[in-house]
């Protein structure tokens, strides 16, 4: 579970958004899209909490995987300074990812920094022969990333809140214009987006949630969420992906 990985590449791909490719043995155990890694910022005790970041792309052949993150707070800003040859201490793979079902056509909906795990998901669904349509929402043109990568996997629509790229509005505005039959949807993004999707989409769906974490592997009880049945379960081990309606948003 704990592993030292080597940074192979790091690039800024949108405003404050960085893509980091890591190489190491533990990649072999990464299978399910939607799982995450828990990254230690440095080997001092300055940052005692790790940062949970989704696995965006897995390249088993080269023992490499990719994370995409927003350098916003203290820890992620430090991560963004690393370059090839630097090492990173990660716990991985953590959590339960998206179930891969043999459907004909699915809708994949991402919002902002919730987009990354959906890339590996779409890749794997495409390998299974599932047709994917992607709707990705961002605040503004400067925030958009991975449009081409998703485009290579299926129809891809972009929404920006300020209308500077793609359609003006939210992902739900785009979805309303789509004329297709979907078997289910998969989503990751801001809680409000997940809530609206869960309430308005007349489809089975899977959503990925976020919560602040202490440990990332089920021991501290920091990351609990409430199920529809009233149980409090740990998001880091029972999630971060849940079936629509399973968790109270």
């Amino acid at each position: 579970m704990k592993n030292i990985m080597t940074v192979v590449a790091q690039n800024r791909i949108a405003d404050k958004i960085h893509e980091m490719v890591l190489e190491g043995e533990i990649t072999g155990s990464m299978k399910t899209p939607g799982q995450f890694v828990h990254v230690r910022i440095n080997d001092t005790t300055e940052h005692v909490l790790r940062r949970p970041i989704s696995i965006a792309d897995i390249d088993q052949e080269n023992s490499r995987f990719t994370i995409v993150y927003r350098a916003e707070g203290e820890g992620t800003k430090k991560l963004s300074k690393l370059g090839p040859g630097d090492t990173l201490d990660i716990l991985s793979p953590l959590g339960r990812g998206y179930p891969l079902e043999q459907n004909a056509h699915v809708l994949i909906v991402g919002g902002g920094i919730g987009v990354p795990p959906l890339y590996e998901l779409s890749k794997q669904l495409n390998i299974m022969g599932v047709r994917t349509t992607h709707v990705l929402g961002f605040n503004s043109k400067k925030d958009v990333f991975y449009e081409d990568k998703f485009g290579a996997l299926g129809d891809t629509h972009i929404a920006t809140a300020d209308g500077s790229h793609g359609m003006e509005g939210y992902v739900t505005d785009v979805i309303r214009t789509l004329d297709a039959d979907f078997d289910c949807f998969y989503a990751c993004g801001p809680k409000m987006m997940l809530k609206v999707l869960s309430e308005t989409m007349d489809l089975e769906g899977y959503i990925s949630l976020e919560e602040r974490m202490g440990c990332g592997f089920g021991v501290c009880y920091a990351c609990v969420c409430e199920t529809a049945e009233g149980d409090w379960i740990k998001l880091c081990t029972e999630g971060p992906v849940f079936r629509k309606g399973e968790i109270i948003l």
Partner: protein
Amino acid sequence: MNREALKISLPGLELKNPVMPASGCFSFGEEFSKLYDLSELGAIMVKAATHEPRIGNRTPRVAETSSGMLNAIGLQNPGVDHILDHELKFLEQYDVPIIANVAGSEIDDYTIVADKISKAPNVKAIELNISCPNVKEGGIQFGTDPETARRLTSRVKEVSDVPVYVKLSPNVTSIVDMALSVGDIADGLTMINTLVGMRLDGNGQPILSNVTGGLSGPAIKPVSLNMIYQVRQHLPHIPIIGMGGIATADDILDYISVGADAVAIGTMNFTDPMICPALIEALDEKLGEMGVGHLHDLKGRAYK
């Protein structure tokens, strides 16, 4: 490896080494058992048990601070009966003494839990949690009022089949007064629990849903060292398990130097899940390098 240098004997506890995970930072061990053999540990201080199951506080429950963290978990646990039947049962397969952390809101809660849990075959001591800052009803009062703490400790002693260690809160005016109030009843002390703190986000809003939380991690080590140093001068013989920010073998030596008998590792289990076995190894090597025959040869050296 011969670890004679690390063996420690305390009331109820024959420790292979002085290193144990602190309560609330290890759950009930199952997750860590997938990473290493729990029998390597000196002991395990398991997560707090209450009479009834507890849900705890709303999220966010943790926030990072400079070299530390705040938590407001609120003692979420499945209740003492479930813990006896499942969590403690699971731990029976390991050759490691369990220290059961007992919490509650009223004296009766504590005595019910202590009575039941002290009868589990692997529970070798109770850690009386009179000091959790995240429980509103009653909890904290036991840890800040010497008279109440004394009364609670003696009631728990009456029902417990195993030695009782009282976990002291640093959130008091005089740690010495608190230690003295329970010092002649308790079999030992564990110190310290977390310090009350808060953190704001960029918009000036508290991050934790509970507003305040308990500060732990390397940031609190100086506070804890000083408190143990003071208590040790007034109670030269009482067993003390020290904790607060331990991250290295040198940190352990600091705790032993101010007079702790053994130590517990809390927050750093999150930062590095392998820290406990790593520190046992590192401590052994360190003593070898220093040519010290037994860890306790260094005990209390801060006073000399």
